[in-house]
């Protein structure tokens, strides 16, 4: 009995060493990758809250289009993931549907859906990160806020993308429910803005590419791309996000992100 306990102690001590090694003994490329990501996050801290309108243009291989009209309100939460309220306006059959999310860097997000026809608030499972958002080429995880803890990193090299010199960094999702084995992100060296992301599926083949264009700066600090264009290389479909009416520091509070605000969201 004692012996067994001793073995367990030794084992856990050993495991602890392994973990600490994993945390501290980063290769220079991993350290650089992490540093770049920390810097990118640091430059995007302090916006407090934001709201914006999103037009989603879905296109299939045959060129048929479908539109989604969505409003997103976000509240910055320091030392945790952000809170967000997503309100659907189009297609019209889902008008009034709203989605409340408390995201967490590593733990599962808390998510609620409001269904206006039944006036029902449903807590939903947040495990479905890899599934398509509203039938688009964006997965739920592609639209969630960037948190440093969500990935481990490796800096690859510098490369020019969209005419700007960029850091090319590989990101490995920590969450096992992610639909990706890795993402390759190009962040421009000037402002640390994502210019392009390649997504690799669970079989490690190139699945999608997301390009960011028409960056605008808000409050003299925060950069947001007006257009995000996602192309799926495997099924030939694409989705374009067009953002407008970006507003920051509009005094949104915790109380704008609860069950009651979910039910009356417009």
């Amino acid at each position, binding site marked *: 009995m004692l012996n067994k306990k001793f073995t367990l102690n030794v084992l856990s001590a050993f495991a602890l060493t392994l973990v600490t090694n994993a945390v501290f003994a980063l290769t220079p490329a991993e350290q650089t990758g992490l540093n770049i990501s920390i810097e990118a996050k640091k430059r995007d801290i302090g916006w407090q809250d934001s709201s914006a309108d999103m037009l989603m243009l*879905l296109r*299939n291989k045959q060129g*048929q289009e*479908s*539109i989604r009209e969505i409003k997103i309100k976000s509240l910055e939460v320091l030392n945790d993931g952000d809170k967000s309220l997503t309100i659907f306006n*189009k*297609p*019209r*059959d*889902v*008008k009034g549907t709203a989605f409340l999310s408390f995201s967490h860097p590593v733990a*599962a997000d*808390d998510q609620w859906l409001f269904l206006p026809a*039944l*006036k*029902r*608030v*449903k*807590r*939903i*499972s*947040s*495990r*479905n990160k*890899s*599934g*398509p958002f*509203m*039938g688009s080429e964006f997965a739920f995880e592609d639209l969630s806020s960037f948190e440093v803890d969500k990935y481990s990193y490796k800096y690859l090299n510098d490369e020019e993308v969209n005419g700007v010199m960029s850091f090319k960094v590989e990101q490995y999702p920590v969450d096992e*429910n992610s*639909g990706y084995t890795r993402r390759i992100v190009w962040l421009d060296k000037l402002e640390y803005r994502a210019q392009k992301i390649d997504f690799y599926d669970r079989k490690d083949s190139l699945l999608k590419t997301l390009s960011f264009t028409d960056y605008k700066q808000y409050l003299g600090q925060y950069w947001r791309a007006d257009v995000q264009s996602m192309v799926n290389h495997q099924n030939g479909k694409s989705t374009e996000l067009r953002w407008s009416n970006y507003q920051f520091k509009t005094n949104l*509070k915790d*109380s704008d992100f*609860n*069950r*009651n*605000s979910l039910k*009356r969201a*417009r």
Partner: protein
Amino acid sequence: MALNKLNISLLVKGVQLTLLAVLFSNTLSATEFEFSGKLVIEQRQYFNEAQYSHQFDNGQSSAVIEPEFYWSFNDGVDSLTFKPFYRIDNQDDNRQHGDIRELAYVHAADEWELRLGIRKEFWGVTEFQHLVDVINQTDGVEDFDGEDKLGQQMINLSLVKDWGIVDVFLLPGFRERTYAGEQGRLRSSIVVDKDNVQYESSAGQEHLDFAIRWAHSIGDFDLGTYWFHGTNREAILAPTLQRGELVLQQYYNQMDQLGLDVQATLGDWLWKVEAVYRHTSAENYVASQAGFEYSFIGILDTNIDLGLLIEYAWDSRGVVDLTEVEFGKSGSTFQNDVFFGARLAFNDMQSSEVLMGIGTDLDHSAHSFLLEGNRRFGDNFKASIDIRLLQSSDSIEPAYALRNDDHAQLSVEWYF
């Protein structure tokens, strides 16, 4: 046949409440107006000939209009919603009916919210039965699942606290349930009388009902509990002679109900429990619906999600022979029943979805089967197919009365 007396008095009450509210909000600035709604065309086909005389055979055609008018003032802090509803039906006079689903003013402050007028409030977590949902009356002629509700006039104060949300409801005025008419299908052998409704309370339909509910989310758990005091939404139907005809007379007693609903969201599992304790002058009972939902994400390397549901219903009243029940007591339909469901979400551009459910009574012969499929067409249309089958060989089961009412329904909805 248009708006009946009740609807008119309801409208007047709703308008009074809403006007009162608008007077309260002194400065109406920066008004935003939105108009939307839907138009539905629906065709039902019954597979078997009617069981009772006067009922129609074969098809039933119907159309619904439900516009919504929405005004918001003071940057969304105050809002006014008006949502009338009307259905025309070529077979059942009772199903051709109108209602005010919503006519309400809402004022939202940081820590509280006041909602006045005619509204709908839903409580609960389970899918196959909505035991704890008690504020609104069921619009029984609308559909088979009892999920359609009549607008309820209310004064609702909602308080947002660190320890949860507390909702207080004052419900002036009661709505009587709608039932299929003499020509209608999906009814028992005796027709429910729309008139001569009896109440236990001397205040009758004017009884002021009261409810208080607490709801909170703690980690993976969503909890809700409430106390309701007022008119029972479920009528006791007593066979009586009216104008020389045998009809079912509606009798609404008073009840006190404690309700509890809990959902635990643990990874791919949703665990759900609903329970009520109901006290009336004739009986006390406990009923519960509990089960789980498990989701398979992206099955067979596609974008399709598969959800599996199992729920169990229990009722302390046990098996009750409705033909021999003592007056004032009510029977239970789901006293030892199990339900299985499967939901396929295709996650495609058209949001295609298929839902299947089977219910079976473990004490005696009664089974139900339902299949629902829907898909969007273009940006503004949606089509749904519903198939409902009911089978029973036991005369004490409510499903026995409906055993010839298997049907399929096709509906096309246009959203504007």
